[in-house]
């Protein structure tokens, strides 16, 4: 019982981070129909920028948090402006390949800036772990879950209640029609890039205290986030969260009850099954275009 609960806590924590990464995929997909393979590198940048600002420059946590996310969002904007906007024939495959190139580029920048060694940082707050029926719940896990909750509530509000959110959704449905209605679709795409990159930055900030951060951490996290987004259904905010949490919990139980070597296998097995059996994901729209 105690062990089952512990696997659940481990899974929820990892899953919440996957969920934030999946949200990044989903936000961008919603507005542009693009899959950004540099999403994992945004996570890496978020983690390493936080370590620099908070640990090395000793800024207050809240400032370091906000600045890290802002820096990553800015990188997302630059990426859209410099690498993607300038493409003459924006065929989806071309765009996806460009994002892969950007991910390799960002990894190189990360290596040159922070070196090849891993870096670590303290948890947000120094509370003792909480005991729940013999299982340990870390304060950092509570922080992660709380922040994810706030993000999801904020996004739901943004898309359902605000004009900007609805405009962004309109762009996703039909860019041309939205443009005809006077929605500045170019700005919406830029905003989507900034928000999506910011999600990656948040995920990096959240994960930095529970693990070791290095320039090459992003690839695997990006893939896991992609799995989570596919599992929940690309394009659905709630789906991304459920997909992330589910993936984290499945992984933790896989390690705990089956075999530790199977952890990554499970994630990708799920991805393959979803693509084969239900390409729209658990909560996704029934029809989804794949390229």
């Amino acid at each position, binding site marked *: 019982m105690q062990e089952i609960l512990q696997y659940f806590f481990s899974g929820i924590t*990892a899953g919440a981070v996957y969920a934030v990464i999946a949200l990044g995929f989903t936000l961008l997909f919603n507005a542009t129909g693009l899959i950004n393979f540099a999403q994992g590198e945004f996570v890496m940048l978020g983690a390493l920028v936080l370590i620099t600002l908070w640990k090395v420059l000793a800024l207050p946590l809240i400032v370091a948090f906000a600045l890290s996310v802002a820096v990553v969002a800015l990188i997302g904007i630059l990426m859209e402006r410099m690498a993607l906007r300038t493409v003459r024939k924006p065929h989806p495959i071309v765009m996806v390949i460009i994002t892969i190139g950007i991910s390799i580029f960002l990894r190189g920048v990360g290596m040159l800036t922070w070196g090849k060694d891993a870096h*670590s940082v303290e948890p947000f707050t120094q509370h003792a772990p909480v005991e729940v029926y013999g299982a340990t719940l870390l304060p950092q896990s509570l922080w992660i879950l709380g922040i994810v909750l706030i993000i999801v509530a904020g996004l739901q509000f943004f898309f359902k209640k605000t004009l900007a959110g609805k405009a962004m959704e309109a762009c996703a449905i039909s860019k041309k029609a939205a443009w005809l209605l006077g929605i500045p679709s170019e700005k919406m795409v830029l905003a989507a890039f900034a928000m999506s990159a910011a999600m990656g930055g948040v995920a990096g900030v959240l994960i930095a205290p529970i*693990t070791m951060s290095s320039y090459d951490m992003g690839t*695997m996290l990006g893939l896991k986030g992609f799995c989570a987004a596919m599992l929940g259904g690309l394009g659905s905010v709630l789906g991304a969260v459920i997909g992330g949490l589910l993936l984290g919990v499945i*992984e933790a139980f896989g390690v705990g009850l089956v075999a530790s070597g199977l952890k990554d296998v499970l994630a990708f097995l799920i991805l393959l099954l979803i693509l084969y059996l239900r390409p729209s994901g658990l909560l996704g729209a029934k029809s989804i275009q794949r390229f």
Partner: protein
Amino acid sequence: MKRQAGLSFTVVVMWVLLLVGTGAGTVAWAGDVYRIGGIFAVTGPSSFLGDPEKRSMEMAIDEINAAGGIDGRKLEAVIYDSEGEPTKAVLAANRLISRDRVLAVVGTSLTPTTLAVIPIMERNRIPLVSCAAGIDITEPVRPWIFKTAQSDALAVGAIYEHMKKEGIERIGILTVENAFGESGRHQLQTKAEEFGIQIVHASSFGARDTDMTAQLTRIRGTNPDAIVCWGTNPGPAVVARNLQQLNINVPLYQSHGVASPRFIELAGDAADGIYLPTGKILVADQLPEDDPQKEVLTRYIESFESRFRMPVSGFGGYAYDAVYLLAEALKGSDGDREKIRSSLEQISGHVGVTGIFNFSPEDHNGLSSDAFVMVRIENGEWKLLDQ
């Protein structure tokens, strides 16, 4: 027309370079020097091994030459960078043999690159003293192949000996999913019976995993007396932190793979209380005065740090020892490779940086488990345990 001129200029330059290159190769072969080759991963992901090894080799050669050389002849080093890649190591080996005509080779830095050059060395009958740890290099024994780095088996032996003293019988092991972790797991499992230790659970983790609480929870469920983690940074630091977070009060043993200040930095106060085996170089200042290696270690550390203005690492010593072992074997050999080989094999009681080498026709590593000492991390410092 202009383009053609440019082309012919390039051709001329290439010819000149080629002539100069081969010229240097033949002219310098005068017979008044003993030339030794070196192949190290000086750049690339394993440069943390190859870079100090190259520096240490150059330093050892300068020291020997300053002391008058060997039988009146100077030593000369020709060192190539393998970048940690077997194909480049093979190219370098061929070049050392056919162009530089070296008497013996020191290196390579990694087990895969060493295994790749072994056939070339054996075919050309050139003594090779490797700086890599893999046990496959010297087991089975090959006449021309030696190595100075401690095998993983010795680290396992040091851990198990310490456990026996502490009365630990049931252990859980957690190894990283790469060649280092696999080798560690294999050695831990094969040696367990010899020391009366039972492995109650074996788990693994990916080199880039961010969280090991699930594995540790599972190990906790089997009630072990101690946990052994086998990996290189950053995974083992995550394990140390998770263990502290889960409040598992079981002694944690790490491998020599994390024996660097970096590990303490990453794990923070979770590093306190961890046991691990390491070469004596990490705790040289804590060694008792009567330790046979103390003098060599102090001299090596002082000259390395004053010469290169960088902190010494545990790895350069492999190349330093290799050069001194070869120097001893070169004495009276008159440059005959078979004589070098057979006198290497007979070296015993050679006090090096890594340990005390006792080579024999059956043992081409020559180290015993006293090449490792057990240390405990206390308040972020390495603390040498009573042996």
